[in-house]
């Protein structure tokens, strides 16, 4: 059995929950605890109620669970919002000077902070306190505080170290009350600690990304910010463009001239790129788009999560042209697929999507080696000679891609229907039709390169759970919990095109249940459309939060 403990910190935006989270995940992980953290937050900078869930465990923990073992509310509003989620076994920690709540444990964080000089240190004190409860090595605590605050100057570093140690010592009076005893694992300390945004950004760099264009939009901005951060060291061209239309067109210009640009955006921003997507299709100019989903329509719930933009990614853009859609389910996949996206876009000269969502972007956990050796940046452009034709008709529909300035050929790309030279044509039954067929042929090649869905659980299943993207870890954890010999889980990290074998997997099941974090079951619809299989059993959630493992266990059990 897994031994785990979950801490929920909740309070107003600006009260410092985020900084406590940032410290704790590092500290716990470096001390050898398996760690998981995810947050949910309102669309405001101060006030409201935000929360973060941190789970500490002796075994790897990769999915959101809803139990709360330790609850630290920073405001009355926070208590209100979590009232239904805390139960008799939840330990509630408050500083009664500010907040009173029945059966809670009063700890004088603020008084301690005042003693050091200012209440702004209470967050660090809390971090030290919690570290101590988990018996974290004090040197690790100090070192982490040092690393995190280093940029802010010696005085701030020192004060915070003092605060952390005060918190650490304070906890000693409470060991008996909490009695926490979770096994550490030395190996964990050497592992990576990433969130989804990190994995996607690093994967992009591994895939040879050398430019990133965006217009800020939650939750996609985290990837943009990462790329900006890496840009100095890794020579990545970063530009915040005036609008999303500019973003995609700049990216296409960049790829055309030999760059490998990443676009990162969310629903409403991507909606504005659909004409540009079609330009990628027509000109056969590669582009990689990271689409971080959040609930719509329109502005919707801008800081929340949903898998609601699959249809948009599938059908965006007027006219017919091939595309690939990846939907990583864990950090390894995110890293790997994000790199692969660049190579596939380049190879097939098409738009490739990486779909994530707020939950995925903001969720951290420790992970073993990333698939570093299986990714590399593959370039497919060629040096041209004077006879070069950008759109040469070939058997498989793929022409060699030249770039201006490299070789003697002229690289003419055209948004109008064109001939092999890239010149406008209206030879309807001649080259115009051949060009249309050339693009259609690429569908076949791309289909051949589709990644297989992965089957977890029973090989001989009767009931097949299906999921894609960010629900991967949650469904997997639920599956482990359910223990049913008829049950298996088929996961799609590539949602389009669908893999050939999908039909076979469906055929082998008596009952297929599609699990999605959206209101209608967009992936289920896609499966029906592509395979003709009805997919009437659907477990859907769409309130702006991701499933928890417990919730899924319950819903799956009810449905099977």
């Amino acid at each position, binding site marked *: 059995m897994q031994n785990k403990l979950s801490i929920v910190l909740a309070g107003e935006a600006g009260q410092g929950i985020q900084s406590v989270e940032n410290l704790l995940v590092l500290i716990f992980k470096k001390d050898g605890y398996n760690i998981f953290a995810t947050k949910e937050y309102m669309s405001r900078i101060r006030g409201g109620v935000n929360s973060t869930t941190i789970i500490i465990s002796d075994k790897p923990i990769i999915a959101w669970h809803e139990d709360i073992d330790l609850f630290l509310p920073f405001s009355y509003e926070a208590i209100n919002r979590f009232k239904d989620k805390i139960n008799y076994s939840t330990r509630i920690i408050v500083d009664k000077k500010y907040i009173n709540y029945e059966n809670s444990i009063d700890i004088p964080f603020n008084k301690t902070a005042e003693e050091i000089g200012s209440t702004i240190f209470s967050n660090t004190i809390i971090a030290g306190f919690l570290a101590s409860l988990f018996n974290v090595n004090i040197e690790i605590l100090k070192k982490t505080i040092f690393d995190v605050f280093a940029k802010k100057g010696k005085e701030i570093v020192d004060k915070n170290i003092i605060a952390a140690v005060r918190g650490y010592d304070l906890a000693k009076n409470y060991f008996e009350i909490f009695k926490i005893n979770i096994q550490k694992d030395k190996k964990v300390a*050497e592992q*990576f*600690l*990433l969130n989804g945004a*990190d994995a996607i950004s*690093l994967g992009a*760099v*591994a*895939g*040879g990304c*050398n*430019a990133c*264009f965006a217009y800020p939009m939650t939750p996609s901005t985290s990837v943009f910010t990462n790329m900006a951060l*890496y*840009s*100095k060291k*890794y*020579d*990545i*061209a*970063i*530009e915040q*463009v*005036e609008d999303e*239309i*500019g*973003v995609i*067109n*700049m990216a*296409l*210009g*960049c790829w*055309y*001239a*030999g*760059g*490998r640009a990443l676009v990162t955006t969310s629903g409403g921003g991507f909606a504005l790129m659909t*004409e*540009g997507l079609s*330009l990628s299709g027509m*000109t056969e100019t590669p582009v990689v788009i990271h689409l971080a989903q959040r609930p719509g329509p329109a502005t919707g719930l801008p800081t929340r999560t949903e898998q609601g933009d699959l249809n948009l990614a599938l059908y965006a853009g007027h006219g017919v042209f091939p595309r690939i859609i990846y939907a990583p389910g864990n950090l390894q996949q995110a890293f790997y697929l994000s790199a692969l996206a660049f190579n596939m876009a380049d190879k097939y000269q098409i738009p490739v999507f990486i779909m994530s969502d707020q939950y995925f972007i903001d969720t951290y956990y420790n992970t073993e080696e*990333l698939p*570093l050796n299986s990714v590399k*940046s593959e370039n497919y452009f060629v040096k041209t000679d004077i006879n070069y034709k950008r759109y040469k008709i070939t058997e498989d529909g793929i022409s060699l891609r030249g*770039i*201006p*300035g*490299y*070789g*003697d050929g*002229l*690289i*003419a*790309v*055209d*948004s*109008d229907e064109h001939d092999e030279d*890239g*010149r*406008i044509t209206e030879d309807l039954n001649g080259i115009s039709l051949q060009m249309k067929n050339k693009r259609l042929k690429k569908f076949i090649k791309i289909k051949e390169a589709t990644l297989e869905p992965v089957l977890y659980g029973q090989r001989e299943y009767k009931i097949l759970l299906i999921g894609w993207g960010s629900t991967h870890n949650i469904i997997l954890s639920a599956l482990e919990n359910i223990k049913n010999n008829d049950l298996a889980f088929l996961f799609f990290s590539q949602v389009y095109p669908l893999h050939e074998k999908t039909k076979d997997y469906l055929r082998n099941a008596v009952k297929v249940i599609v699990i999605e974090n959206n209101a209608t079951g967009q992936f289920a619809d896609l499966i029906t459309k592509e395979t003709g299989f009805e997919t009437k059993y659907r477990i859907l959630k769409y309130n702006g939060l991701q499933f928890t493992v417990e919730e899924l266990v319950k819903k799956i059990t009810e449905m099977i």
Partner: protein
Amino acid sequence: MENMFERQCEIAWCPGCGNFGLRKIVLSALKELNLDQRNTVFVSGIGQAAKAPQYMNVHYFNGLHGRALPAATGIKIANPDLTVIVESGDGDMYGEGGNHFLHTIRRNPDITVIVHNNMVYGLTKGQASPTSQKNMVTPIQVEGVFETPLNPLSLAIALDASFVARGSVGEPELTKELIKNAILHKGFALVDVFQACVSFNKINTHKWFKENTYKIDETYNPEDKIKAFELALKEYPFPLGLFYINKNKVVFEENLPLYKKSKEPLYKRKNDNIKDLLILKK
């Protein structure tokens, strides 16, 4: 001597269209500057004017209506060695593309923007464009245009564009020199060029442009922004020439950190060693 930029091909413009004149001017400018074809990229949107690159021996990116500028900037980002020239229509650049016009000027990449300003939407058959003059009647503006025509010159000057000029197909020598200087200029260079659409603009004809323009005095100093603005407001007749130049602006792509370190275009770089980055995530 033959102009290697000139392509022998059928041209889909109407006989008599001002686009032919501008094509000739651009071709001469390219030749006289002795540009290397292999390093010259044209970028255009959609419209009659935007077809221009189709009829030249150049690299081109013929993108979407209104979206030439971000594509051109993207090209410069990937490879600052390329000479990038945008050629498009007034509707394309100032209508659909207005936001990119604003912000590309602010960004100041080293590109040249030649706008075929015929004061009408040609390809879609004669609706008003942002530069259509007041009272022009069209199939849509049935009672005539009453909105204030957009003045690209004063707008660009207000945004502190680094090179702002107006040419006219009726003044080929002047216009050619403007275009050459625009290409030589480091930074965003706008050359708005008056030209007639013989099919749909029956007001602003070749003759009208001749009669309603004059060359800016030789003594004029284009480095004074307020003077330039004042000059840009002059109408009926409209001045032709270089209105404004700001030689002190940072060039966008040169200021990108990656090009401060090295001038290598992106395609020559190898950039996937992420080991150091990953260490930060341990």
